[in-house]
């Protein structure tokens, strides 16, 4: 059967769209929603309820609908959308849901993005109040953004056939929108729902940009966009939702809100059924009844809970053959799927009549949409006449206009919009020019609030308060009976208001029913908190474009292209990609690293050290400042020299290490670990700016200005000599822990003679621009020695053989310099430095602290897994087992011809020579504790 009216509605009747629902093929028109198209085809039953499996239909026409949950299957699976908000397109495939949606198995091909927008006045809602507010603000010259969740402006006007100022309301709307869109500085966003309101005028809105295009959606356009709107002033013209009344079996398909039926009629040219009973507590449903009757729907009866019906409207109804029964209520319904009969009885008690119908329209009054106002921390007040919470105060930057305030008269709503728009413009520093004329409506229904009626007494088990959660009046009474007294507890006990619709139509009723059950006044109750988002938002929209390669910046050095070209595998170190090792064909990690280590120890290797943090310090107090930051003395360093240093936090735990180069009398260059570069610069600035602003020191990051290339191994001197002909590389002229400015490969370079491997080594620094070319020049110059590029893994092995710790690997925020065996780097002379005082605490002076030692597996071929724990006995007792520490680093060593490890071990320094045990899988591996320096203990190799 076709329920499409012959005329009317904002649909394109000349175009037919085909779609599939629950496996059946149907047609509709552009302008339809899935819901209106289903209704046009006579389909009321959409899905079934989550707990009881009862059939469920379409209750409302918009985003407040509590029941019409559907799963989109094509073009791409999307769960849990409301049929009332899905715009119809050709080829749509959908099905009704039983409360749970299904996620796609395949990746979502759509694009998503976000955009920042700034304005003076944001207006939320393009109904009469919002349109007038926006126009008033726009005419003042303010930057205005108007957002509305529908695909066209008009708000409540879209669902009625009223005339404004003697012409169709759509014309009035079109004029206002046209002026807004042609005013510079005004942005009108359709299909855009403001879903969250935060501090300082921050409003988030989701725009659905291509969903309505279905298969024709262009792939290059972001499907959905999160607008991050920052506004000075906001006008909330968010309207009101009609609410139902709860009665027995109030959940059958065919039971619909009265105003929604009217919307389906006027906006979509769809009739809800052929014979409709109307149940109301107020005047507005009369208009629905009259409209539908005029459209050919048989309306046998209006059931008005009020003691007397409005006489003028009752007369109009009588003229159309509609009976009005005042003082009556609907007490129940029948029907195996869709409603077939309703029971009508006098309010209170009395004989129930049964009326045959296929549709029951219900109106229990109006709930102003106050979600955003509440999110903005506006206080709400219970309006007993309306039976709803309304904005209870004005906020400095947030105004409310229209039916969101509880006002129901169109001209009054528009006036509120005008006032709010003007006030917002003034508050934002603009002067409204003239007054936007207020439209007058020819509506039959004078808007008056009616009787506040939450529920009709009856079968509590089938009187549904929250249709989506299948929560009934019984559930509420069970909760109050269990001793629960707060609305929050009852909400949690019954789950009312927590479903997909977040209680848009049920929340107020639930509060009313609870208050009745508890015998308290709603005016004394705090409404339950409104939390963002107002309507659901896809995860992908929130993630936006921070996906895939843009998820987090990949930081690369100037030499990176070479590493890629030469087959390096990379390690993530913070955001950096660092070469991990350079496997040759057939090599795994161990083979490659053994080769890289061997080449470096025996001839020459080099690595890209550009990621090291580098900070330039200048000023007369730079030395004094560094003396406070490092545990050792830096101010005594001579110009031209380099010193290794350790930094601690105030708690005395090691936070970083690196080298300090004295560049000039009042200038130093310090290096930090790769991961801590930003943190250490911040750390320095924090102390300088907040604690010691009197110090004359300035810090500047030069991390990326310099490319840094450690050139390592006995032949490094030869390679350097080849590329730096003007530099005297002899041991006498260029001592360990000194630096020289020179030219390398023809470009200015600073060469430091430092070593993190124990070998003769140089660190070559050139501007990042020259990094790649200098690297290639070194490769060329070193070719004769078989120069070998190596990655972080080889670097780790080489330093571990020398017992040098890696901050973050050997340390974990519980390790002091003394624990690392670095008492030599802790000044005894300095009166103070950061962390010093903490060394005197009881815990720091325990003799059984964990200390860094070497471990040699008794079987030299056994490689201990890093992270292994260490125990004292060769047999494991029952848990908990006493653990002495753990393996921090572990490698096979080409130089040692065996495996070895570094470990933090309780009383480690005293245990050197002892045998301990490392549980690995099901066995205990015996290990010998040694000094942490395992290679070239005498340091003979560093001079080459």
């Amino acid at each position, binding site marked *: 059967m076709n329920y499409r009216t012959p005329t009317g509605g904002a649909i394109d009747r000349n175009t037919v769209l085909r779609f599939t629902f629950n496996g059946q093929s149907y047609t509709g028109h552009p302008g339809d929603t899935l819901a209106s198209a289903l209704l046009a085809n006579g389909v009321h039953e959409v899905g079934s309820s989550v707990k009881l499996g009862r059939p469920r239909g379409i209750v409302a026409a918009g985003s407040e609908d509590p029941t019409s949950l559907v799963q989109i299957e094509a073009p791409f699976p999307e769960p849990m959308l409301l049929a009332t908000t899905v715009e119809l397109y050709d080829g749509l495939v959908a099905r009704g849901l039983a409360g749970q949606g299904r996620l796609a198995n395949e990746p979502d091909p759509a694009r998503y993005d976000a955009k920042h927008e700034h304005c003076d006045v944001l207006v939320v809602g393009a109904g009469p109040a919002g349109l007038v507010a926006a126009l008033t603000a726009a005419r003042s010259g303010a930057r205005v953004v108007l957002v509305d969740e529908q695909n066209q402006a008009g708000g409540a006007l879209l669902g009625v056939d009223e005339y404004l100022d003697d012409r169709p309301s759509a014309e009035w709307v079109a004029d206002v929108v046209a002026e807004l869109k042609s005013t510079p500085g005004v942005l009108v966003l359709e299909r855009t729902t403001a879903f969250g309101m935060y501090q300082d005028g921050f409003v988030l809105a989701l725009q659905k940009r291509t969903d309505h295009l279905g298969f024709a959606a262009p792939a290059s356009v972001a499907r959905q966009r999160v607008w991050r709107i920052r506004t000075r002033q906001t006008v909330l013209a968010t309207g009101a939702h009609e609410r139902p009344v709860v009665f027995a079996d109030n959940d059958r398909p065919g039971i619909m809100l009265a105003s929604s039926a009217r919307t389906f009629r006027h906006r979509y040219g769809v009739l809800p059924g052929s014979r409709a009973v109307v149940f109301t507590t107020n005047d507005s449903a009369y208009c629905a009844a009259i409209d539908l009757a005029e459209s050919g729907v048989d309306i046998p009866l209006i059931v008005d809970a009020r003691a007397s019906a409005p006489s003028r409207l009752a007369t109009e109804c009588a003229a159309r053959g509609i009976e009005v029964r005042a003082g009556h209520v609907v007490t129940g319904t029948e029907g195996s799927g869709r409603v077939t009969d309703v029971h009508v009885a006098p309010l209170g008690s009395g004989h129930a009549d049964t009326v045959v119908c296929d549709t029951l329209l219900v109106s229990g009054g109006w709930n102003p949409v106050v979600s955003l106002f509440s999110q903005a921390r506006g206080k709400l007040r219970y309006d007993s006449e309306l039976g709803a919470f309304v904005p209870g105060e004005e906020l400095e930057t947030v105004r409310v206009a229209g039916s969101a305030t509880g006002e129901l008269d169109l001209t009054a709503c528009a006036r509120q919009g005008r006032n709010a728009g003007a006030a917002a413009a003034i508050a934002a520093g603009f002067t409204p020019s003239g007054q936007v004329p207020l439209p007058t409506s020819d509506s039959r229904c004078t808007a008056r609030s009616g009787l506040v009626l939450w529920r009709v007494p009856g079968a509590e088990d089938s009187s549904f308060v929250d249709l989506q959660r299948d929560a009934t009046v019984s559930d509420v009474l069970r909760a109050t009976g269990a001793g629960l007294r707060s609305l929050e507890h009852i909400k949690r006990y019954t789950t009312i208001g927590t479903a997909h619709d977040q209680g848009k139509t049920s929340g107020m009723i639930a509060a009313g029913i609870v208050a009745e059950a508890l015998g308290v006044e709603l005016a004394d109750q705090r409404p339950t908190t409104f939390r963002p988002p107002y309507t659901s938002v896809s995860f992908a929209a929130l993630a936006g474009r921070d996906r895939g390669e843009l998820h987090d910046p990949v930081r690369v050095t100037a030499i990176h292209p070479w590493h890629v070209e030469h087959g390096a595998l990379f390690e993530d170190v913070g955001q950096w990609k660092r070469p991990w090792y350079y496997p040759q064909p057939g090599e795994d990690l161990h083979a490659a690293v053994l080769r890289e280590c061997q080449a470096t120890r025996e001839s020459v290797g080099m690595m890209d050290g550009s990621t090291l943090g580098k900070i330039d310090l200048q000023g007369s107090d730079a030395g004094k400042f560094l003396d406070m930051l490092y545990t050792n003395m830096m101010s005594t360093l001579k110009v031209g020299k380099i010193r290794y240093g350790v930094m601690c936090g105030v708690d005395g735990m090691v936070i970083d290490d690196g080298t300090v180069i004295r560049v000039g009398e009042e200038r130093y260059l310090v290096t930090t670990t790769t991961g801590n570069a930003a943190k250490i610069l911040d750390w320095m600035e924090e102390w300088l700016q907040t604690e010691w602003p009197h110090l004359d020191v300035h810090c*500047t990051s030069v991390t990326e200005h310099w490319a840094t290339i450690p050139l390592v191994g006995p032949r490094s001197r030869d390679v350097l000599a080849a590329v730096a002909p003007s530099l005297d590389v002899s041991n006498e002229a260029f001592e360990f822990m000194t630096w020289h400015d020179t030219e390398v490969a023809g470009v200015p370079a600073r060469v430091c003679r430092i070593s993190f491997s124990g070998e003769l080594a140089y660190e070559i620094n050139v501007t990042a621009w020259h990094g790649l070319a200098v690297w290639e020049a070194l490769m060329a110059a070193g070719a004769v020695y078989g120069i070998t590029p190596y990655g972080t893994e080889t670097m780790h092995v080489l330093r571990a053989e020398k017992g040098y710790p890696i901050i973050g690997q050997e340390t974990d925020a519980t390790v002091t310099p003394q624990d690392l065996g670095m008492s030599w780097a802790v000044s005894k002379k300095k009166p103070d430095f950061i962390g010093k005082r903490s060394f005197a605490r009881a815990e720091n002076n325990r003799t059984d602290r964990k200390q860094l030692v070497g471990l040699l597996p008794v079987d030299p071929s056994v490689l201990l897994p890093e992270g292994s724990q260490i125990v004292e006995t060769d047999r494991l007792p029952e848990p908990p087992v006493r653990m002495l520490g753990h393996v921090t680093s572990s490698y096979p060593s080409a130089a040692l011809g065996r495996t070895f490890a570094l470990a933090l071990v309780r009383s480690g320094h005293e245990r050197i020579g002892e045998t301990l045990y490392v549980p690995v899988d099901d066995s205990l591996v015996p290990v010998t504790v040694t000094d942490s320096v395992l290679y070239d203990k005498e340091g003979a190799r560093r001079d080459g």
Partner: protein
Amino acid sequence: MTADPTSPLAAWTDRLTFAPALIASERPFLSQLTVRVSDPDAVAALGSALGVVFPSVPCTFTTGSGPFGAVEVLWLGPDEFLVVAAPDLQLPIEDALRAVPFKGSVVDTSAQRTTLVLEGSHVRDVLAHGCSVDLHPSSAPVGTCVQTLLARTGIILQVTGPDRFTILVRSSFAQYLAAWLSDACVEYGAVP
């Protein structure tokens, strides 16, 4: 044997035209010096040495011309400025600045950041996808210079013309920024 320089966006040279959204171009190898100074007399003297008045208003930049040709000075903080000039002038400019006696610091940071010029009718739209600062001409007129975030990287953003911006970005983030711009421009008709 002289090593040729490579700019951070060398690999993007032919790919920075995001028409019709905007045209981007790298201006590599500019001379850049970070100057830390707070004494107003010293600030004035440093400006005189370069022929440019240092910006006194936060979040602005100034331009001038002197012994080193056209020079821009960007306000980075209450005692921090970035001097930007044509390539290969960093050493003489550093010398000129050091010739002024003042308490503070001068650091050659030329390779620390690279420079991208963005022009086109959609340039504000594209930037608004990742930048929370209001770039409307009434809020950010020509001469504005802000340090802020663009998507997930820090930038220095200069408004240099009606629809023209200059972005300075840390060298290691430059490729991320280029990829991000390329992706953002797709919306406005650019072919990635």
